[in-house]
């Protein structure tokens, strides 16, 4: 179980550029749930992920993962609990390192690193097996620099890396947005397979309403730093993209009304 309680994040706090990005977000995610997150630019989707990963420090509120309060923990301290794939395919891997070295980095996520050899025959066999499922022939290129791969291939490897060792939550930040449609579909298909197989608790930010409804079992929409709506179950199953837009309009309208009431 992952819980966000009354999370507030403000960028450039105390300056003329002060920007409240999250304004009181409450969210609880049961173990094994796959949630999709939508919202317009600046709604706070990425910041929400960064709060979970520890890269954005909330000014107020509490983050607990599996009952442990991790609010004050730096990203590397909670890496055993949090796995993530970035939007930029270059961000999740080290271009100058080989494919196997990148996988070895991920295989030690959240563990103490010592002077043991990072690569062993056992690990290589495990990596070869993991890469084979991609069907890209990467299992025969373990010693190639990962910088030689295309963006889509790198993103697929990033996804494997994130799922290589267990985590309490997998964060996907528009991880198919920078890819061409065919590659994006491939990476998304892989995502659904891996999440289902390992029953991973997942938070996936997406810019596509279609994707948001097709994947996972719950969808939340962010707007102006708050959760505008949160749908799951039969209600969500009945929704189509136009309904989602209508829901968005309605929730926005209600917010406006609320503000109007406050001002009045």
């Amino acid at each position: 179980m992952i819980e966000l309680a009354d999370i507030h994040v403000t960028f450039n706090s105390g300056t003329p550029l002060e920007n409240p990005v999250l304004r009181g977000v409450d969210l609880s995610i049961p173990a094994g749930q796959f949630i999709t997150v939508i919202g317009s630019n600046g709604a706070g989707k990425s910041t929400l992920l960064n709060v979970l990963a520890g890269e954005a420090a909330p000014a107020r509120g509490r983050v607990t993962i599996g009952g442990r309060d991790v609010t004050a923990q730096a990203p590397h301290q909670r890496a055993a609990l949090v796995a993530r794939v970035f939007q930029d395919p270059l961000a999740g891997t080290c271009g100058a390192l080989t494919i196997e070295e990148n996988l070895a980095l991920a295989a030690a996520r959240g563990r103490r690193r010592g002077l043991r050899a990072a690569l062993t025959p056992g690990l290589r066999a495990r990596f070869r097996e993991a890469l084979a499922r991609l069907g890209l022939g990467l299992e025969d290129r373990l010693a190639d620099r990962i910088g030689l791969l295309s963006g889509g291939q790198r993103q697929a490897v990033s996804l494997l890396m994130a799922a290589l060792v267990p985590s309490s939550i997998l964060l996907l930040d528009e991880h198919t947005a920078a890819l061409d449609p065919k590659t994006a579909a491939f990476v998304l298909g892989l995502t659904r397979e891996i999440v289902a197989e390992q029953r991973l608790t997942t938070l996936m930010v997406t810019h596509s309403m279609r994707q948001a409804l097709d994947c996972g079992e719950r969808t939340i929409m962010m707007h102006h730093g708050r959760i505008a709506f949160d749908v799951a179950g039969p209600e969500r199953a009945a929704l189509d993209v136009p309904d989602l837009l209508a829901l968005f309009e309605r929730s926005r309208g209600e917010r406006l009304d609320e503000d109007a009431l406050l001002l009045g």
Partner: protein
Amino acid sequence: MSLFAFLGALELGFVYALVALGVFLSFRVLQFPDLTVDGSFPLGAAVAASLIVAGLDPWTSTLAACAAGAAAGLLTAWMTLRLRILNLLASILTMIALYSINLRIMGKPNVALLGESTVLSPLAALGLPGYVLTPIAFGVLVLVLKWLLDRFLGSELGLAMRATGENPRMARANGIATARTTLVGMALSNALVALAGALFAQSQGSADVTMGVGTIVVGLAAVIGGEALLHPRTVALATAACILGSLVYRVLVALALNADFLGLQAQDLNLITAVLVGAALVLPRLGRGRAAA
């Protein structure tokens, strides 16, 4: 060039290969431009020479020199990480401070080691002249340290260090404490440079407070020149390139100084260095341009 001059060039080449390996760690692996080395090279020399003159055995003195270098690297890294001073600037501050500290350690601008027992003294028992044995001994030491460094960079911690320089955000997301790997890497880098200083002082017979000037340029010349020669694709080749680069650089300098028709003299050393580094930076690019055309 005489055999004597050639062996002298090899000896210097092997000593500065240690500087090159140190600069490779900071500059290439951690991507941390570190000028501390201009201070940690004479620091190693000053600590080793002063302790030897004070009567300590040369091995312990050399080890103490490495520890002092590591401390200098830690200081620079700490200023960058905790005090948030720009890395280049932090290293310049350490370098400047070390000038005074080195004078304090030696108590005077230079310390002579004439007649003192050094780590090279046992070689005299082998019966061959020092100018033959010293380069061989340094060569063996450099190869052993290269092998150890390769092993380290292939370990879990070493891999974490390489990820820290290459992609710190990804490193942190994978649970790597990037501040810690930076501290360890900078300590290791400057320990290697201080070791070079300690060995240089013992083979040349003195430590001098000004001997560090331009250490970073010579180190970079070796790293960049070696890369231009070998185009390394693996860590083992990259460290080999550092050593090769250092040797080639010293031999080229010796050739330039010995070529009478050029009329170059010892005071032209820095000019030759600048030309060689410039050539190492530009020539590979020219080669690529022609291949692409």
